[in-house]
Every structure is written in C-alpha cells, then in structure tokens.
C-alpha cells in the first residue's frame, strides 16, 4: 500500500474514531436548567411543588437528560413582576442556562417571555396561564406544560348548561388571569345557550366578598361560576357557604378553587363541581405511580396539579433531549422534538398544540371529603384557540 494512501486511511479512521468522543464531549457538559420560581411569598408553596415535580422526573430519568448531567440554577422571583426582567437576565446572561423554566405569576412570565423572545432562549412555562404567552406572543422557543387561563374555564359553561343552569353570574378578582378565565367561561357558556347575568370583580387581592355575595343573592342566577385560587379561594368558598348561598345557588369554579386548599375549606367545599386538567384522584396507574413516587421523594408531601406540571416539564425535556441526544445546538431539531413529544403525564397523555400549549382533557371533579373526585371528562382533548398566534 502506498504510504500516502495509508496515511489518508489512517487519518480517516482516526477521524471516525475521534467523532464519537467529540459528540460525547458535547453531551458531557452539564445541562443547565434555570429555575425561576417563587420561593418566598404567597406562591412559595407552588414554586416548591413545581421544583419537586421537575426533579422527580429528572431523577427517574437516571439523573440525566439526553445523556447529560443536569445542573439546576435557581432564582427566587418573589412573584414580583418589577424584578422579573432583572432576574431572568441573570439566568440567561450570567448563568447561561440552556433552558429557562418558570414561573407562577403571570406578570413575571410576561417578562420572561419578553427576554426569551429577545435572546432566543428556550422557555418552558410550568404554570402561569397568561393567554398571550401561547397566543399573540407565541414563539418557536416558548412552550407551556400547564394550561392557558381560557382552557379549564371554557368547558365549565357546557357543564353548567347540562345541569340545567341557564343563567349565571361570574365572579373573580380584577386581574389578567381572572379576566381571561371570564372570557373562556363566557364563550363556552353562551355557545351552549346560557346567559351571563353579570360579571363581578373585586380589586385584587381584596378578600372582602360579603358585598358581592349580597349582590349575587339579589340577582338570583341559576348558578355562579368563579375563578379564585389559594387563600382567596378558601375564603370565598367559606363565605359563600356561610351566607347560605351554597344550597340555594350552586357554585361552580375553575379547578384552582379547590386545588391544594380543600382541607382548609372543609365541609364548605363538599359537593363543589370544578373543571381542571388534573385531579389528585385520577384513577390510572400512571397517576398512582407518580403520586407514590412523589410522596416518597419529597418528604411525604402530597403532589398537586402544580407538582404534575413540574413533573411534566421534566418528562417533556427528557423525551426531547433523548431525541436530539442531548445536543441543543440544532434549535430546529430541538423545537421539533418538543413539538412532537407525547407526554405520558399523570393527567393523561398530552401533546403540544401548534402554539405550544398542551392539548389536554379537562376533567369534571366533585369535591368529596377532602378529595377532588373525578366525575368525568368535561372536554376531551381541548386545545386553546391561541388567538393571534402566527406559528
């Protein structure tokens, strides 16, 4: 064999040998996940649940995503939109995270979306339902694993009509999430033939409901539909019952009404019908396995819908990163992998809509003895209309 050919062959085989280690090196660097979540303040509990869920999914994937070790970088966003851009810049510019994950407060998420769009960073939203994030402001690099505010509210109208309620009052706080939920509910309820007598709003986060409950009592609608969460939800449900309205005018709500606060609401929540994309009591093996694993992994904490959303964020990332073998440099391939993933979630399998929001079943749940019992599926494979999204 000629010397030159031999050398060339050797070089070629050396290159062939060298190639896999090169790829392995790309995979070898740690994958940096930037968590921007509330760890202090009113939503601290939600931030912790999301992080626990995410970490469980990563642990179940063997502590690696797409073959790469995972490193978490955390920032407490304090649910303060005024500090949001600064916080997200820290993760993107200083910590150079590969994927940005957050957050709970929708004002904070709007700031994250802004930065993600400008810097073309991958963003996965594990909670906040701000419609614009997967609507008018949708982008190839922005995904959501939770819900849009429209989504769980829309089927509620049909549910109420089916139960014979033709007129309704809607009540919420005066803030973006409440108004978007109102729009979803209104659309569903009117489409099913119902009539909204009145929409009532309280200044956020005012919890003095008595004046508006008096108004509901004098309006005498067939039923009331509402959007509240957290401590406000506890107080609203208790006040509604204490005013004697519970047995006279049935109360319905977007599922956050009874999410994570059912024990605090006690008997006053008994029998409440709500719609949401998850229920603790979902009777499928996937959910049971998840719940057992979560409880074991997080110090006997019970998982809730927020934990599921965090968990699904992990599942989604694991699947997409496996597909691209941990290589995030080819953005188109990464986006395609995220878009085509079918997430085997405790809430039931779901995949992304064209606007990158889950197409998912919305369940009808009844609160019974401290548990949200699944009554049925209120809407099968519901997709957010994503108005204004040009993807």
């Amino acid at each position, binding site marked *: 064999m000629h010397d030159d050919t031999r050398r060339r062959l050797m070089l070629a085989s050396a290159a062939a040998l060298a190639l896999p280690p090169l790829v392995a090196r790309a995979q070898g660097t740690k994958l940096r996940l930037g968590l921007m979540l509330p760890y*202090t*303040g*009113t939503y*601290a*509990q939600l931030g*912790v649940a999301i992080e626990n869920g995410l970490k469980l999914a990563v642990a179940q994937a063997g502590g690696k995503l797409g073959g790469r070790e995972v490193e978490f970088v955390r920032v407490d966003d304090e649910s303060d939109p005024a500090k949001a851009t600064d916080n997200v810049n820290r993760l993107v510019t200083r910590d150079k995270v590969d994927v940005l994950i957050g957050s709970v407060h929708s004002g904070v998420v709007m700031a994250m979306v802004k930065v993600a769009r400008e810097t073309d960073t991958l963003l996965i939203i594990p909670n906040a339902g701000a419609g614009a994030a997967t609507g008018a402001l949708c982008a190839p690099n922005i995904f959501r694993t939770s819900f849009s505010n429209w989504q769980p509210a829309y089927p509620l109208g049909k549910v109420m009509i089916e139960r014979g309620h033709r007129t309704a009052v809607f009540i919420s706080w*005066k803030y973006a999430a409440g108004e978007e939920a109102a729009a979803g509910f209104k659309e569903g309820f009117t489409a099913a033939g119902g009539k909204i007598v009145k929409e*009532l*709003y*309280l*200044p*956020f*986060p*005012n*919890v*003095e409901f*008595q*004046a*508006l*409950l*008096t*108004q509901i*009592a*004098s309006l*005498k609608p067939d039923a009331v539909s509402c959007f509240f969460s*957290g*401590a406000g939800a*506890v*107080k609203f449900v*208790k*006040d509604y019952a*204490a*005013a*004697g*309205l519970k047995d*006279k*005018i049935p109360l319905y709500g977007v599922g956050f009404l009874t999410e*994570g*606060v059912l*024990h*605090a*609401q*006690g008997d006053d929540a008994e029998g409440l019908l709500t719609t949401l994309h998850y229920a603790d009591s979902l009777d499928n093996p996937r959910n049971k396995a998840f719940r057992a694993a979560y409880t074991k992994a997080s110090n006997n904490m019970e998982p809730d819908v927020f934990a599921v959303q965090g968990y699904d964020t992990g599942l989604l990332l694991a699947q997409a990163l496996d597909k691209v073998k941990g290589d995030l440099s080819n953005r188109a391939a990464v986006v395609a992998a995220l878009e085509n993933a079918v997430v085997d979630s405790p809430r039931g399998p779901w995949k992304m809509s064209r606007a990158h929001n889950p197409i998912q079943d919305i369940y009808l749940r009844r609160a019974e003895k401290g548990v949200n019992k699944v009554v049925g599926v209120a809407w099968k494979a519901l997709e957010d209309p994503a108005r204004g999204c040009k993807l």
Partner: protein
Amino acid sequence: MRWLALPFDTFAIQLLNAVQYGLLLFLVASGLTLVFGIMGVINLAHGSFYMIGAYLAWSLAEHFGNLGIAIVVGVALSLLIGAALEWLFIRRLYDRDHLYQVLLTYGLILIVEELRSIVWGDDVHAVPVPDWLAASIPLTDTLSYPVYRLWISGVCIALAIAMAFVIQRTRIGMTIRAGASNREMAQSLGIDIRFVQLVVFAVGIALAAFAGMIAAPVSSVFPGMGNQVIIICFVVVVIGGIGSVKGALVAALLIGLVDTFGKVLELEVAGIPVLPELAGMSVYVLMAIVLLWRPEGLFGKRAP
C-alpha cells in the same frame, strides 16, 4: 354620569356589610391606633403580627382543640413577643426621626415572614368557627348572615368602648397619655416612662395578634396576609386622626362604607366606567380627600 341605584332591601344589607367590615377593620387597626396614635411609633410590621396571631390561633387551636384557650395563650405569647421587641429594638428609636421606625419595622416584616415560613410552612389553613357561633341568620330567601361575623362586630364594639374608657378615664390611660405628650414631665411625676412604653407596645402587638386570631375563622390563615391589611390599617388611623380612638372607629366605618359601595355601585362618567372598575382606588381617594380637607385627620388635634 350614570348611577345604578340599589333596591332598598339590598341597600340595607349592604349597609350591614359595610358596618360589619368597618368594625373588623377597627379591630385590626386598634393596636396600631395605640402604638402609632398614642406612642407615635410607626410600626409597618403591625400586619405581620396580625398574621402571627392567625397562625397562632390555627396551631394552638389544633393543639388545644379549643379556639378560646388558643386565644388566651396566643395573647399571652404575643404580649411577650411585643415586650421583647420593644426592649430589643423599639426603645432605641423613640427619639429618632420616624424614618428609622419605618426602616426598622420594614426589616421586621421580612424577618417575621421568613420565620413564619420556617416555623409553620407556606400552606393555607382554616380555623373552624366555634360550634356555638357556627349558625347563620336568614335575611332574605337566598341570603343569610353568619352569627360569627355578628359576634366579631360585638367584640369590636366592646373593644372600642374598653379602649376609649381605659385611655380617657383611668389612671393607666392618663399615665400613657402623659407619657406620650410630655416625657420629661411624666418622668418628674414619678412615672416609669420606660415601663409604660414597654407595656403599651406589647399591648399593641397583642392587639394585632388578637385581631388575627379573632378574624382567622373568617379570613383563613395564609402567608403574606399581614401585607394585605397593613396599608389599610394606616389609612384607618390617619383618616381618623392620630391619637384618636373615636377617630379610628369613625374612619374604619367610613372605609367600610366606601369599600362596600365602591364594589357594588355602578358609575359611569362620560361613558367611561368608573365604578366598580376602579373600586380598588376608592379607599385611597377617600384618604386623600380627608387629608386635603383636614390635614390632621377627622378627629386629630390641630398641629401647633
């Protein structure tokens, strides 16, 4: 301009709501009236002790199985906390500008919130209404009124009377007022001013916690609940006139009215909806109007 009027029976019930809310506000602000109004100490962390009270009510009621006992123990504990705070921090600031009190108590808000998170976690909790107060009184065919709310109103009225009596008519009250208006003279009369200040501050903290405990069954118990009430408490004291218990009561009732009717009346000016859209502004508009009209508040003494 367009108003939407209310039918009379609804109006009457809304009036009841307004009074009831106003009285609750007075209860929450009562400790601040004492500490801010009479001692002249701005305690931004007043709301934090309202929150601590609610958490104490919840955890002690679980422990003792009885809200009454929980309240007694809780009040004793918060008196101790208040005394400790006065001894450690507040007494170093009496002679300084209000600015430093604002700053110190702002820091206390952050500290108390984190300690609450460490001790009790970040969950929302409910405190059950005691059985003997759990009933409701029917008002219309659809609406009834919870007895516990009426009971709170009763407690508030009793507290207002007791405070006015103690401060205006008793020896202790005279000592407090003397100490507040002229420290040197009080001292020369043989009053241990330091001790009086310690007691008054501790009582103020205990009142905040007491309000939290009484309100816990209707408000529920949650992180950050103090921050929601603190500003409104200052509004109560300032509208009423600093140092006036009567003023605080009147102001609280006024705010109750404005808040309640701001949410239910409909008002349009030149086609732009003003109420209830901007109901969140109503209380602050009231405060601004009162202070521009009478800078010292409704019942405050005119500045020299």
